[in-house]
């Protein structure tokens, strides 16, 4: 968006010295003034026009316009092209201008925000745009951060401050930032004014979660990380004030660096349309060549002899040159086969469909007060062609509201109830309040033995909950005594910390160096020595704390696969029991974590902390070295137990999946969960069923074993039920329709593949095997996948299957998948809005997907196809008449119609009825498309608009043009008015043909329109009316008297249309054009009805009887 160009010399690193504007000025860093607007008043016209003419279509029409200005070539007045072109350009320009106006406004508002800058020891109010790199600015509570700052000091102890990053990444929980200890001591303004440290850091980039730099001050080096940074767009919270050093300003900030345009997606119809337009250009050139050859022959044989009455124009001295000019003349008059209004109309229709999606009440979630949103307006019809859905699990299929449900402590399992059981009332919800005044009243747990064991003082149980209360990154907010609110980055963590809280291990508050808890009523403060962060690769987090007694202990929680590998050998027996429990939990569809601890001696700690510090300070490969350091200490741990968290399925998920799979859409679940959890969710959302022939599980760790697995799968698949064997077979002979939705999945195969195996399966030599096996299966579940793998799977299917893919997810880990699929859908849920921001469509419930695809997508596809068919038809019918006329007018590029008719045909006479059809048409009502998901199939098979359909439209258009030319030609050549005046003059012929054309295409649109709303009526009748009105106006004496040279058709309309012969001719032409179409369509509906025809008929009958 922004126009800022990176200065080459800043490529490697950036140096910023505090309070030294002169020094920093040398580097010419960007100022803090942002400019997202593209134009100003002077540059608007040239820049906007320049941008618009980068569109091929616009340039093409400009080229035509230039051709038309050459008198020898010009077969049409210049305004036939300039009027539509100007219309299109000005509509776009107005839209751009409005957008830019609002950008200007917001830029101004942002640039003029006030901030306090420390200049020569004094705080001065400055506008944001005047803030420079190297300035020290003061922020107060609830203020927006003006630029990317290095936190120097804060009013809170330890240089801490809290920020909310909602505007940056959509996460609403608070995050803590801490200044480097040396600067946090600086404190007040006077000290800060003399601060002259120099920061050397990486150049501007768009990575929100990492920063790498070094502070040099008083001959010492301090490592800077993202923890020390306040990024532009964040809001300061719960912190009275803080000071920061501006590192990146304006366009260099991470916020602005992230606001780049996402990749522009195109639909398959778009691509097809572009191909067809190219073909039409080819066709146009062919026509031009044929007519030019005709012209050459004619000029040689006839024209040269006819020179006594019609001499050649001066530059033409032979027939070849005349033919050359004639070619261009014909290019001009035949260009209407690709009218400029095509692209505009397509955009308008898509915009209309997007609004219908936004307006749909049935995709509105009243609980979260969010309506569905079409964030991209250009993909709608592709929603009607989806064949593969890639879905995230957590937060997409499930609600992402976590509840602590079961746990296993020291080999003993607790917790009996899961939501999947019925509410029989057999279990009594535990009441924690008498035991623990700090308990969260919303917390539910149904097994009192666990509470007993806490009360009894079982040391393992205590340690278990102590771990949960210490090992996390949750922030707490204690508004009044005992009223605790936890702000967690992930709902899992929140659930675990809340569980610990209710069982008496209450996490109260944290500082960078300490964690304060209340353990069974007794306040305890732990010294926090280190946090070993969670990430997707490590899949675990640890803390190292020193308890009040001075003992150092590492607490670790993480995915069982990684954690169980790092246990001390003596845990073998406990590990076996716990593993059994874990499998049991996973089979219930619960999310599991294993917990472990390790005691560290003072020496061990010292040694490790040294190596950790070393890794921390490293400038290159810091992350890898840190990971290695973490790895080193997270060994030989003692197993404590495991937790199981339930994530409830969203409403309507099984039904939606059933409907979608009936619509022949294959659903793949890509999840980070473990295999058992994923499989279980698969069962509970009816993706997998017990009547499935076989569920293949691939979990090999090596290339060979994975390949082996695939081989055996394909073997079994062939031996088993034949219908389920191959995807291709299914398409050709779909299984007989069962009466019930749920039954259809029977006799199918499913595939479950593990992350390790997937990595091998995605390798070049095995991907074909993977694709063919997976696509033969009805359901595919990939578990333990990384975000990158999600995207790779999507890319793989895109590459090999040429099918339309849709990815749906809610979290940051789904962004890559959402971006790489043809259509990305974001669920606005618990996990921030990153997925939504990257998506093309967003809504809040998975079940809305069926309506988005089966209703909106299907309609969009249908409408777009009908629109395109008709559009090409009407333009061929319109234009090809010139071609036939060419054979009778010496190939001179004389038009058949009046030039005004040519100008207005596409933009006035025929544009609105087809637009109304493209926006409002429905073949079957919305509830029917949900009842009969098979109605979705034509879209997937691309039946409604493809090359074949295109040729049929073109053929129909050409047929119409033949009729429209030769019927009037045959009738009028001998006919006379009732006054004896012949009707064969050019103007009468032009009016007759044009009127017949308008009537024929109106009748055709009337036939094509299946859903006559009031708009369709108004537009169809209005267009016809406007044709006659405008024609009579243009042929009126008044206009002729003002511009005799421009309106020489004066009187033609009335003297032509008063003749009965003319109307008989028009009626005859209309009948000849329409009768075959009518007969053909009737036969199609009568003999080979599509499902939609049957459903439509059925619906009508029902409506008739009720």
């Amino acid at each position, binding site marked *: 968006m922004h126009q800022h160009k990176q200065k080459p010399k800043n490529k490697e690193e950036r140096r910023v010295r505090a309070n030294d504007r002169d020094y920093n000025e040398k580097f010419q860093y960007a100022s803090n003034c942002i400019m997202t607007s593209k134009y100003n008043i002077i540059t608007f016209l040239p820049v906007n026009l320049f941008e618009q003419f980068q569109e091929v279509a616009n340039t093409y029409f400009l080229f035509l316009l230039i051709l038309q200005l050459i008198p020898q070539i010009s077969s049409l007045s210049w305004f036939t092209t300039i009027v539509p072109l100007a219309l299109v350009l000005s509509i776009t320009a107005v839209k751009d201008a409005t957008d830019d106006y609002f950008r200007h406004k917001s830029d101004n508002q942002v640039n003029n925000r006030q901030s306090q800058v420390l200049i020569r020891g004094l705080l001065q109010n400055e506008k944001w745009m005047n803030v420079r790199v190297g300035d020290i600015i003061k922020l107060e509570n609830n203020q927006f951060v003006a630029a990317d700052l290095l936190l120097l000091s804060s009013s809170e102890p330890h240089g801490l401050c809290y920020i909310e990053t909602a505007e940056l990444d959509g996460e609403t929980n608070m995050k803590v930032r801490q200044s480097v200890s040396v600067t946090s001591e600086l404190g007040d303004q006077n000290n800060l004014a003399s601060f002259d440290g120099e920061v050397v850091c990486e150049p501007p980039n768009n990575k929100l979660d990492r920063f790498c730099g070094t502070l040099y001050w008083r001959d010492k080096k301090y490592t800077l990380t993202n923890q020390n940074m306040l990024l532009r767009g964040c809001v300061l919270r719960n912190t009275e004030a803080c000071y920061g050093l501006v590192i990146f300003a304006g366009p260099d900030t991470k916020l602005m660096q992230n606001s780049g345009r996402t990749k522009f997606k195109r639909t398959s119809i778009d691509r097809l349309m572009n191909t067809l337009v190219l073909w039409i250009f080819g066709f146009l050139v062919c026509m031009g060549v044929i007519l030019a050859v005709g012209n050459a022959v004619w000029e040689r044989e*006839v024209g040269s002899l*006819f020179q*006594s*009455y*019609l*001499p050649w124009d*001066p530059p033409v001295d032979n027939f070849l040159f005349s033919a050359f000019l004639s070619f261009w003349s014909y290019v001009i008059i035949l260009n209407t086969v690709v009218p400029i209004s095509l692209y505009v109309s397509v955009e308008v229709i898509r915009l209309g469909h997007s609004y*219908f999606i936004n*307006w749909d*009440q*049935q995709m509105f979630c*009243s609980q979260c*007060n969010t309506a569905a949103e079409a964030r991209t307006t250009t993909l709608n019809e592709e929603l009607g062609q989806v064949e593969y859905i890639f879905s995230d699990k957590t937060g997409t299929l499930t609600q992402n509201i976590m509840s602590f449900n079961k746990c296993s402590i020291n080999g003993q399992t607790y917790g009996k109830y899961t939501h999947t059981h019925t509410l029989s009332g057999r279990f009594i919800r535990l009441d924690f309040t008498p035991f623990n005044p700090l308990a969260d009243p919303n917390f539910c747990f149904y097994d009192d033995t666990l509470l007993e064991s806490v009360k009894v003082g079982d040391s393992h149980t205590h340690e278990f909950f102590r771990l949960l209360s210490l090992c996390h990154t949750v922030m707490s907010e204690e508004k009044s005594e005992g009223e605790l609110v936890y702000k967690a980055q992930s709902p899992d963590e929140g659930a675990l910390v809340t569980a610990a809280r209710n069982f008496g291990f209450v996490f109260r508050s944290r500082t960078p160096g300490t964690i304060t808890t209340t353990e069974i009523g007794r306040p305890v403060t732990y010294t926090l020595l280190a946090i070993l962060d969670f990430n997707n690769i490590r899949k675990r987090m640890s803390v190292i704390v020193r308890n009040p007694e001075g003992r150092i202990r590492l607490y670790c929680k993480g995915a069982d696969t990684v954690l169980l590998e790092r246990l001390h050998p003596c845990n073998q027996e406990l590990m076996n029991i716990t593993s059994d429990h874990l499998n049991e939990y996973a089979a219930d569809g619960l999310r599991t974590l294993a917990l472990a601890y390790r005691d560290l001696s003072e020496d061990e700690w010292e040694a490790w902390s040294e190596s950790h510090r070393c890794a921390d300070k490293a400038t290159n490969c810091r992350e890898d070295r840190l990971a290695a350091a973490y790895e080193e200490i997270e060994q030989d741990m003692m197993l404590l137990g495991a937790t199981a968290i339930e994530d409830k399925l969203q409403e309507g998920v099984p039904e939606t999946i059933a*409907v979608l799979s009936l619509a022949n859409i294959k659903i793949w679940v890509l999840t980070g969960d473990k295999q058992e959890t994923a499989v279980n969710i698969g069962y509970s959302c009816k993706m997998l069923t017990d009547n499935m022939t076989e569920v293949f599980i691939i979990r090999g760790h090596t290339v060979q074993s994975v390949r082996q697995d695939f081989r055996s799968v394909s073997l079994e698949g062939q031996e088993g039920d034949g219908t389920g064997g191959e995807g291709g077979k299914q398409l050709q002979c779909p299984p007989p329709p*069962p009466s019930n*939705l749920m039954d259809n999945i029977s006799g199918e195969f499913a595939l479950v593949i593990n992350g390790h195996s997937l990595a091998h399966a995605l390798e070049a030599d095995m991907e074909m095997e993977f694709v063919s096996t997976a696509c033969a299966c009805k359901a595919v579940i990939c578990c333990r996948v990384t975000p990158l793998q999600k995207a790779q799977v999507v890319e793989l299917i895109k590459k090999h299957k040429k099918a339309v893919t849709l990815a749906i997810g809610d979290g940051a880990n789904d962004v890559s998948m959402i971006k790489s699929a043809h259509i990305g859908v974001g669920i606005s849920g618990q996990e921030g809005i990153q997925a939504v921001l990257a998506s093309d469509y967003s809504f809040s419930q998975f*079940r809305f997907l*069926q*309506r988005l695809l089966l209703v909106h997508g299907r309609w969009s596809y249908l409408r777009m196809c009908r629109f395109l068919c008709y559009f090409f038809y009407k333009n061929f019918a319109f234009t090809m008449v010139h071609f036939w006329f060419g054979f009778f*007018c*010496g190939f*001179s590029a*004389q038009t058949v119609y009046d030039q005004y008719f040519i100008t207005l045909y596409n933009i006035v006479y025929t544009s609105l009825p087809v637009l109304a059809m493209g926006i*409002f048409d429905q073949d079957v009502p919305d509830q029917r498309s*949900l*009842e*009969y998901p098979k109605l979705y199939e034509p879209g997937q098979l691309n039946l409604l608009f493809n090359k074949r359909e295109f040729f049929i439209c073109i053929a129909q258009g050409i047929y119409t043009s033949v009729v429209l030319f030769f019927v009037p030609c*045959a*009738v009028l*050549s001998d*006919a*006379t008015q*009732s*006054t*004896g005046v*012949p009707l*064969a*003059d050019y103007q009468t*012929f032009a009016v007759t043909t044009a009127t017949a054309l308008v009537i024929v295409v109106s009748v055709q649109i009337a036939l094509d329109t299946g859903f*006559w*709303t*009031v708009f369709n009526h108004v537009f169809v009748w209005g267009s016809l009316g406007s044709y006659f009105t405008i024609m009579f106006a243009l042929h009126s004496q008044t206009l002729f*008297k003002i511009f*005799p*040279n421009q309106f020489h058709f004066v*009187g033609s309309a009335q*003297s032509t249309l008063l003749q*009965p*012969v003319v109307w*008989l001719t028009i009626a005859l032409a209309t009948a*000849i054009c329409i*009768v075959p179409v*009518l*007969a053909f369509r*009737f036969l199609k*509906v*009568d003999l080979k*009805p599509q499902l939609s025809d049957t459903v439509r008929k*059925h619906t*009508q009958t029902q409506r008739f009887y009720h």
Partner: protein
Amino acid sequence: MATSYNAKEEDGHHSGASSHGAAGVVKSKKPDNTAFKQQRLPAWQPILTAGTVLPAFFVIGLIFIPIGIGLYVSSNNIKEFEIDYTGVDISNPCYSCAKNFSWNSTTPCVCSMNFTLEQPFESNVFMYYGLSNFYQNHRRYVKSRDDSQLNGDQSALKNPSKECEPYRTSDGLPIAPCGAIANSLFNDTLELYHIDSNNTRNTIPLVKKGIAWWTDKHVKFRNPGFIKLNKHLCTNKPVNWRKPVYELDPSDPDNNGFINEDFIVWMRTAALPTFRKLYRIIQKKSNTTPTLPSGKYVLEITYNYPVLSFDGRKRMILSTISWMGGKNPFLGIAYITVGSICFFLGVVLLIIHHKYDTRSNSADIPN
């Protein structure tokens, strides 16, 4: 029928309640429940069923066939006579005129053609001249005119439009009327004589007014206003013309200059290279005698217009007309054909429908 999850129900009610509760705090973003926004506009949904399509075919057939017959009959009642006088063959009386044509000759070449009308022509008879292979619809030809000039515009008279090139000026003076169309004005003179039983030639009165469109005569073409069209106008005649525009019909000021009807008729360019233009009207004299009784006639042609150079043909046509204009057998035949085809299609489709369509009875929809 299929049991299906219906996403429709759960909204409607409790969302209303929640928006009440949250009133003033959070504005509900629930989309309006209007028929337009929810795509539930009342609509007529036509279906192509046997009940609508088949009757339509029969109705079209039943309407078209009678119209066709009517057209055919009335077209057949029209008398038409046509004679080619180009003079291609040596036997043709106009052969010598055609062969010896020269633009510069001052004496007009006259030739006569004898012909016989087998049947009498009742009521008004219209006399046309027809040209073939004459490209009045050529783009360069069509645009080579200046409507402002023809409309009597003074400035256009002195400075004709560029479209008129190369017939815009001659000898430094603007041409009036300018352009290729005007320049190529058809200037043969046709006269018709009836040879009665006494072998005397009776001139048949030919009316030369009322042959142009009303709008052309009264709106489109006008003589320049304040100066009566005369030689004081500093204009030149078109190159091919023998006399200037103000001498086209000196006898009748209302038919002279730009508003000369022969000129106007010529200026209304034809759509096709073979065309006919109304030349004269022979008005009916009385109710008792036919306008043109059967018998021998002589057509006397003042042969001024060369067409042989480009293989053109010239014809003279005599025709009566009916309510639907001149002789036009095509229209009647086309109507009868289309009507019959529709009727036939209707029958065929009816048979097909009854024979093959079994599904309409079973309302089962495959799912």
